[in-house]
């Protein structure tokens, strides 16, 4: 298929269609309203459903109801909107339904700003709603990867009957890059014969989709069941990318999403100065590539690990957990919509190594 130049926001919408996800519920919020503006005409073309809800609270709950049909359903939003969906996300996780959420992150807390940030890492990775649960969290660093991961997100949601969240910063949404979509669109799921979708109690017992277990023994059982599922997810679904990671590295940078690309340029330019730096980019933020981060960070020449984020430091807490004190960890972050530039990353690396420019 020919390459198309598309904004990340629109490409994400088109990717969902490729994945056979034709049911989209949304509420406008900057910087991702283009997704709804795109899908409101695009979905009817392919026989899909678009509902502009009255709030993100309603969006989350429409998805909850819609997912019970067994069809692929999704929404896109940005930070404050995702906060409002946390209620439904908790219920959806508890009821074990497949739903894909996209968070094009902007700066917070509160109304914050409308420019790119990565300050919702905790909310996504640690589960922002109540209860013992996890989302599968994927973080693309280019428009093409956003497309690929969006399609994967639906597969993982169905496979594990678990909500999946794609998190990108505002740059992924607003940037235009060349993208290629799969030749063939997936057919929408056929819930006939499903052993969990609500299809009507015809020739079978009535089915209940619920998260309420008033009996503590049953609730504990359900929570243990979920915990088992997360273990399987940890075993099967870890994804990451390494860039110029070698035994010569003196510094290993940890960054995800667009931030990782900025670090990549810094690494290329530092290489020309004779400074060897590698990049480890987690693609799945949950499950987190714990073991690989430990292994790569403890290569013999690595003096320090640098975590770079568009936040005041969130993923760094997971990196600290992975490294178990084996390497010194430093941090560089900008936030509020200010994006660290390659120069800033280079300066930070030089400073860590005591190298004057």
């Amino acid at each position, binding site marked *: 298929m020919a390459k198309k130049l598309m904004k990340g926001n629109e490409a994400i919408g088109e990717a969902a269609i490729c994945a056979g996800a034709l049911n989209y519920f949304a509420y406008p919020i900057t910087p991702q309203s283009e997704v709804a503006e795109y899908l409101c005409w695009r979905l009817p073309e392919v026989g899909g*459903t678009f509902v502009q809800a009255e*709030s993100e609270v309603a969006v989350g*709950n429409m998805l909850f*109801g819609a*997912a019970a049909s067994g069809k692929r359903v999704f929404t896109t939003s940005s930070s404050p909107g995702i906060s409002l969906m946390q*209620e439904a996300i908790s219920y959806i996780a508890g009821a074990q339904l497949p739903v894909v959420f996209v968070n094009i992150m902007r700066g917070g807390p509160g109304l914050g700003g409308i420019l790119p940030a990565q300050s919702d890492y905790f909310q996504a990775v640690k589960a922002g709603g109540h209860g013992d649960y996890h989302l599968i969290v994927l973080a693309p660093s280019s428009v093409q990867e956003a497309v690929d991961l969006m399609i994967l997100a639906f597969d993982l949601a169905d496979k594990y009957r678990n909500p999946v969240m794609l998190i990108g910063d505002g740059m992924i949404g607003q940037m235009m890059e060349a993208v290629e979509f799969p030749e063939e669109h997936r057919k929408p799921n056929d819930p006939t014969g499903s052993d969990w979708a609500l299809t*009507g109690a015809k020739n079978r017992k*009535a089915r*209940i989709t619920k998260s309420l277990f008033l009996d503590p023994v049953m609730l504990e059982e359900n929570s243990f069941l979920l915990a088992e599922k997360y273990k399987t997810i940890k075993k099967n679904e870890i994804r990451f990318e390494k860039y110029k990671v070698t035994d010569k590295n003196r510094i290993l940078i940890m960054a995800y999403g667009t931030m990782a690309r900025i670090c990549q340029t810094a690494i290329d330019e530092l290489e020309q100065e004779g400074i060897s730096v590698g990049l480890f980019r987690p693609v799945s933020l949950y499950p987190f590539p714990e073991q690989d981060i430990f292994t790569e960070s403890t290569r013999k020449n690595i003096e320090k690990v640098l975590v770079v984020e568009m936040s005041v430091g969130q993923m760094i807490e997971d990196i600290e957990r992975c490294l178990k004190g084996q390497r010194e960890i430093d941090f560089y972050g900008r936030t509020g919509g200010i994006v660290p530039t390659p120069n800033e990353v280079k300066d930070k690396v030089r400073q860590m190594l005591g190298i004057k420019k």
Partner: protein
Amino acid sequence: MAYQANTVFTRPASLSETITHYCPGCTHGIIHRLVAESLDELGLRERAVGVAPVGCSVLIYNYFNCDFLEAPHGRAPALATGFKRIRPDMIVFTYQGDGDLASIGMGEIVHAANRGEKFTTIFVNNAIYGMTGGQMAPTTMPGQRTTTSPAGRDVDLAGYPIRMAELLSTLRTPAYVARTSVHTPMHAVQAKQAIKKAFRLQKENRCFSLVEVLSTCPTNWGIAPSDATRWLAENMLPYYPLGVFKDPEREEATS
């Protein structure tokens, strides 16, 4: 002398054989039955999906013999919207109490009704929060004592009770909106007619439909079941008049 036994009364197929947990004198059981009879008579059970509220009737799915979804507090209309939009061939209904629908779920019900979502809402109004233990609801009567208004509802602080049927019938989008009661057998028969009509309109893919049903809560009202029906008649009926507020068939006939 030989007698021929004829079945004159059975459990509707849409109800399961589970015994309900409702208190003596509570009318949820009656309303469940009216919904179940309507589903049976219209032949809808096998393609029905109910959406349970949070409140006393949260366990409604244990008493029905059709598929059910359990919603967060107040969000049943959003779940119903999501499901019905994807499966317009199914029959979807929400069953909600007054705390669920008129307080925390006000936004969801107003917008679902206004979009004309093609599902049916059974709104059970007993003027109090039941499951959480008798707190003041938006529908609690002026002066009515509850655990959070021990001196009686003070309208200066809490305003007057919300009349949901009237409020929703101000919306222009075609909708069937009626208020009924089940405090006497005669009223229950009328309520059944309204509920059945609401489902029939959905079956014909006509419109959003809502039937408010006035209900008793002797436990939290702190009175005996027989006094509760009298209290409803004396206190609720004058404030919450029964009737059909919006009817697409009537509108078609007069236009």
